[in-house]
């Protein structure tokens, strides 16, 4: 299998699906001739032309709002938002329209749109090139939310997302766009939406994470091992709907949980996971579930490496939870 980074894997998925299905169109700011800020759509304009790889005006609301109409007509729009931080001008279209279209039309219409956007910090981007707004979409019923951490998952999940009849928020962890490399199957394959992956098996503490923080969690787990703590690390891959079975099975085994995410702590996905574990495995809990997350501040600039829940912040939580 070829080695690819995340950018290449996503590009490969887009190209493949555009060849396979002529209803698929890519649209967004600078996605065409320029190939996107992160070059994720590079080459697609030349391959498929300006009617399928569309440079739009600078308006996220317009991009997503027109994508709705395209989807109603039977197309498969895959809009790109340059940074997740700039998705909010389109928030109304996403939460009031896309998320509710199937429901409010009594199932007559669907809105199969995949909104691709880079998330997360670690690139010296400050408030507006670093945020992780996934819980602002999870709380709203009607959206699937995906966040791959490996090139293989990025390709397989993107192909699954474009073929899904439901709208999907597809968050791409930009910090590992090029840093995460790995083997990626050639040609067509999908990774099922809604299935987490146990990346590392362990007996003592369950670590639940996703996106770029997977690598921090794995690093902390390796270091915890040196301290005699055996961690199981789960990469959620799909953030909504959650793979509750995989989470609960692990917690049933370990009785101890640490959730790690970049997004601010309060009302983040970590809170939901802790509450769910309380509902599903309360009697098995041997220590208070911990959250190691971004802080409840805007994403800072100079101090971003203090803000992110990196390995050195995860490690003590693992050890303390194991020894509670």
């Amino acid at each position, binding site marked *: 299998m070829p080695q690819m980074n995340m950018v290449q894997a996503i590009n490969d998925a887009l190209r493949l699906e555009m060849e396979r299905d002529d209803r698929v169109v890519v649209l967004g700011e600078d996605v065409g001739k320029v190939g996107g800020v992160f070059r994720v759509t590079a080459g697609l304009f030349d391959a498929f032309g300006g009617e399928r790889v569309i440079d739009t005006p600078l308006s996220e*609301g*317009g991009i997503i709002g027109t994508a709705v109409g395209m989807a109603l007509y039977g197309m498969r729009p895959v809009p790109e938002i340059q940074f997740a931080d700039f998705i909010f001008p389109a928030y109304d279209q996403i939460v009031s329209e896309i998320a509710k279209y199937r*429901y409010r*039309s009594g199932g007559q219409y669907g809105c199969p749109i995949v909104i691709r956007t880079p998330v997360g910090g670690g690139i010296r981007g400050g408030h507006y090139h670093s945020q992780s707004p996934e819980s602002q979409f999870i709380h709203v019923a009607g959206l699937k939310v995906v966040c791959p951490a490996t090139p293989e998952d990025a390709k397989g999940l993107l192909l699954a997302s474009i073929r899904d009849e439901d709208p999907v928020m597809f968050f791409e962890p930009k910090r590992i766009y090029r840093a995460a490399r790995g083997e990626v199957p050639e040609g067509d394959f999908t990774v099922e939406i809604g299935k987490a992956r146990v990346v590392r098996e362990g007996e003592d503490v369950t670590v639940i994470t996703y996106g770029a923080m997977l690598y921090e969690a794995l690093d902390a787990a390796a270091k915890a091992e040196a301290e005699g703590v055996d961690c199981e690390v789960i990469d959620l891959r799909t953030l909504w709907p959650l793979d509750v079975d995989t989470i609960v099975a692990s917690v049933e085994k370990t009785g101890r949980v640490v959730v790690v995410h970049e997004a601010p702590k309060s009302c983040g996905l970590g809170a939901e996971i802790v509450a769910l574990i309380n509902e599903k495995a309360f009697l098995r809990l041997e220590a208070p579930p911990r959250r190691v997350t971004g802080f409840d501040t805007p994403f800072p600039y100079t101090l971003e490496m203090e803000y992110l829940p990196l390995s050195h912040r995860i490690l003590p939580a693992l050890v303390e939870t194991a020894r509670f």
Partner: protein
Amino acid sequence: MTTATRTQADQGTTTRGADEAMREDVVRVLSADGELVSDAPELDDALVVDLYRAMARARACDLRAAALRDEGRIGAYDGSAGEEATTIGSTLALRDDDWIFPTHREPTVALARGGSVEAFFHHLFGNALDGVKGRQMPGGFAARSLRIASASAPVGTQLTHAVGLAWAARIRKDDVVALAHFGERATSSGPFHNAMNFAGVFKTPAVMLCRNSNWPQVSETETITDTFAEKGIAYGVPGVRCDGNDPLAVLRVVRHAVARAARGEGTTLVEALAHPLDGPEGARLDPLVRLRNYLGLRGHWSDAAQAELDESLQQEIDQAVAAASAAPTPPRTTMFDDVFVTLPGHLRDQRDA
């Protein structure tokens, strides 16, 4: 019912007369008394009779719905009684292939596209037979089989949807036009700006139909421009104004816009100036009366025809209301359907708790 073919529409609008009419400040075809005041494009009398019948049906359903609302038997309902020139006139300017993106005020457009009166009232009652499964207020209908999008409350959002659908049709090289309804206040909303700009840049085959129902008052709170039509200039989208109480003016202007869109020339912004029925000029300018007079003058309508129509509409509506109010409420479990195509685990849990 909507018999307009693209060719007809073209004929109706590419004649010299029609094009000149488009250059008028406010396009008008009928006087208040139903007499022709402008050089009318070819009008098929049978189509005008159809238009009149569809308008009468819409009016009757709107009035009954308002009565049901006042009796507390259904929820808040606005409708568009008095605005049939715009709602129904524009619908008959489209082909069945074309799409309609209504606001919550135009559920009656479904009736003009072959939707049944019974389906209309099932929806208003939000019962188990409602096409949207009791999920939305009376204004929030949808009819995919009629190519009518899902109306909803947030002002303006449907404008970008209409442009997006038209754009998709253009990309697919289909001869399909999308028409969006909206009120004049929606021009202040974000989606208006987005829809108009994308429509301009991508030359989408869309028609943006603005009901200026505040007319002849000026909406000082929304804008200081004299018209809403001129807002198109910012986007390279031509604006046309017409008498929104004149069904034949709306028909003509929308046909013109549709033909223009179909020719690949892009979107037109239509401002229909509508005197509200309860306004000072409402009764005098009632589009229903105006069109009936026109047909009467041409010998295509009579008091007997009117009595028969009234009678049959009342019967149809009575039966539909009886059926709709007798139908059961949607079962509780349906609340969890259609959030996603297949029921995910957490919703199964919540449903079965």
